[in-house]
């Protein structure tokens, strides 16, 4: 699995858009980029996944440049309930159904009222 690097922590005010960038310089051709969210006292929760360009769902957007060496998770108009740790993972679809998730340090996002 490719190693990922994220900021350790970020603060943002309510109502703003938050962008968390993850570096994965050694990403392989078959690797996907996946983001998880973890609230205190809960297990991680899948947010979004992408391979290239842009992916959007009801929770977030994921921007992946052409070289795929980084990705940016974008959370629109954050609220206090978005305070959590966000993990970026990179992995190979050839292990689908048998993936061993390797979590990095994650980014602790704190939303300020």
């Amino acid at each position, binding site marked *: 699995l490719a190693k990922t690097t994220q900021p350790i922590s970020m603060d943002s005010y309510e109502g703003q858009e938050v962008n968390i960038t993850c570096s994965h310089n050694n990403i392989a051709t078959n690797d*996907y980029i*996946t983001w998880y969210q973890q609230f205190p*006292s*809960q*297990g*991680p*929760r*899948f947010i979004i*996944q992408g391979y290239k360009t842009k992916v959007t769902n009801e929770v977030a957007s994921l921007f992946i440049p052409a070289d795929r060496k980084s990705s940016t998770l974008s959370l629109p108009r954050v609220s206090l309930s978005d305070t959590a740790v966000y*993990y970026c*993972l990179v*992995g190979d*679809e050839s292990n*689908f*159904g*048998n*993936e*061993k*998730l*390797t*979590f*990095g*340090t*994650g980014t602790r996002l704190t939303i300020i009222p």
Partner: protein
Amino acid sequence: SAVISQKPSRDICQRGTSLTIQCQVDSQVTMMFWYRQQPGQSLTLIATANQGSEATYESGFVIDKFPISRPNLTFSTLTVSNMSPEDSSIYLCSVESRRGVYEQYFGPGTRLTVT
């Protein structure tokens, strides 16, 4: 999505004792995973439990310390044996999703404190 429950949700145990953590899923799954999350840290995979076969342990984790059972497709247990304060962590189970690559569903975790 799968609904996962864990028992107990938390426990305080004495050094040298053992605790068995249960993980129940509301649907049949082939792969189940056990993770450890030490205070303020990220998650570390302990082992992968495939129904009908021995669990596969990651480097640094051994069966004698963390025996795992997987009796059927909806249930697994992880035992933390001969506990020491260093075993104080949150233990989480997860299961594979058939929806996409690297998407797993996690249980709420079991918070273990060893005194």
